[in-house]
């Protein structure tokens, strides 16, 4: 890697970690001006920075406000770089349908998972909050998703998660998707009980889980 390129990638990552939107934009513009590959700059610059931010979140150095500011810097840089990505450079992305289950409108956790998945290279369709089980199933089928990600903060709405799995079973398409669950009242035990493929304790963990499940799928295929 040329020195200029390496320096710019490092600066992109630092801009994300430092929550500096302006610097992310300016550095991304420098990448474009230097005719450096935009896709590589996203991967090795912005995404690397976001991964570091995720580590800091895991280590309780960063909390939700910081993580959101990092992701703002990341998206600002992406907006500059995206138009310059060469089509042949783009790898096929894994697709995720995400949402908060019906009855619940708390979506801070879901939004964090969405951001972390997106910045880790997943293509995320966000249904929003208070979403009936059938819509997860329909959307997953429509976009040919790899993963269905379900979130809730309320014990009273946990049943809706099991309902998604039941509907997938009833329609005979359970094996087409990995179902992952998370949120305050959710545990690994609950995930096992309803027949989900995995449980993540926080947003960083959700990325690891999604990667693990889709990697396993690639091997199986």
């Amino acid at each position, binding site marked *: 890697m040329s020195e200029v390129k390496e320096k710019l990638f490092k600066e992109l990552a630092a801009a994300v970690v430092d*929550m500096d939107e302006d610097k992310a934009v300016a550095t991304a513009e420098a990448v474009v001006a230097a005719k450096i590959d935009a896709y590589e700059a996203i991967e090795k610059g912005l995404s690397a920075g976001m991964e570091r931010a995720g580590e800091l979140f895991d280590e*309780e150095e960063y909390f939700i406000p910081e993580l959101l500011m990092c992701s703002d810097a990341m998206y600002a840089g992406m907006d500059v770089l995206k138009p310059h990505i060469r089509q042949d450079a783009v790898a096929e992305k894994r697709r995720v349908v995400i949402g908060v289950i019906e009855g619940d409108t708390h979506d801070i956790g879901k939004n964090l998972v969405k951001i972390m998945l997106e910045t880790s290279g997943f293509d995320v369709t966000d249904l929003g909050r208070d979403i009936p089980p059938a819509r997860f199933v329909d959307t997953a089928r429509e976009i040919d998703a790899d993963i269905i990600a379900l979130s809730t903060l309320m*014990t009273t709405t946990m049943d809706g998660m099991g309902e998604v799995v039941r509907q997938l079973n009833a329609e005979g398409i359970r094996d087409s998707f990995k179902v992952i669950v998370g949120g305050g009242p959710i545990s690994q035990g609950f995930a096992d009980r309803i027949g989900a493929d995995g449980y993540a304790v926080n947003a960083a963990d959700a990325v690891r889980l999604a990667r693990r499940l889709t990697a396993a799928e690639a091997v199986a295929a």
Partner: protein
Amino acid sequence: MSLSPKERLLNVLHNKNVDRPPVICTGGMMNAAIVDVMTQSGRTLPEAHFEADLMAGLSRDVQEQTGFENFGIPFCMTVEAEVLGSEIDFGTLECEPKIRQEVFPSVGTVIYRDIRQMLDAGRIRKVAEAGLRLAKAHPDVPVIGSLTGPVSTAASIVDPMQFLRELRKDRENSHRVLTYVADFLIAYARLLVDGGASAICIGDPTATGEILGPRAFEEYAVEYLNKVIDGIHDAGVPAILHICGDLKAVKPLVPKLRADAISTDAMVNLRLLKEEYPTLTTMGNVSTYLLEDGDSEKVARTTERLVKDGVDIISPACGLSTSSSLAAINAMTGTVKESR
């Protein structure tokens, strides 16, 4: 020593001697109007969110059937956000009300309204009236008025993701919104106290160490919780504060909070917290999930341990699921009452 439930609770909150800990459920975030109670009494939600007599009646049903030694009103966390302009989904028998849509996209766009006028809006007067009826009819049982804390109320009128960002990005307007919300909460609390509330409990689930981190918790949560707590003290009653989630990121900040009791979620070991801060009055923390699970024996054992650990007020850890069983709750309240 024979104490009425009100004397017992107030004694604990004023650091005076008691025969045993009170066992309470404060309403608001810790709503105890579970489905079991409502199907027996016929006074139901969501209707009781709107009418003072129904609210008072249901609160009385809860107190009688659960054994909790207080009245806790209202039954939701949306009274404040409704008055401040957000759109509310009032839920069902099983499902508590929630914010359908926050009214402002950012802290910079908040429209500031006259606080006195807002006290006549929404369900504010109904809650105060329900409190007044309960206090008059049952002078020995404490009425606890429950507030949604300043950080959670602010995050219920401003888009929460944007709000969390702006705690760092737009500190000036963040402080302005929180000052406004805190002033409103103090005025609302004062109204409840005028109506006979013996204590005010603040639940502020967005103000956690896990969400905010220690820096923002100190700058915003400690600052505005204390402002509201001081306002409650000025109104002449003690203040209880519930902090959600794991305390560890913000534990050193706990002594800075001026509440008369601190309630925590189930994962916090209150015995150790008390060892660390001996002057702290603790409240909690029978696991919400354990109570929902319904194993009365386990509930009784956990409750017994908490009493033995010297927890000052026994209460569900982080509210109650509406599908909790009366048997499990009575196992909890019964264990405390036999514990003298």
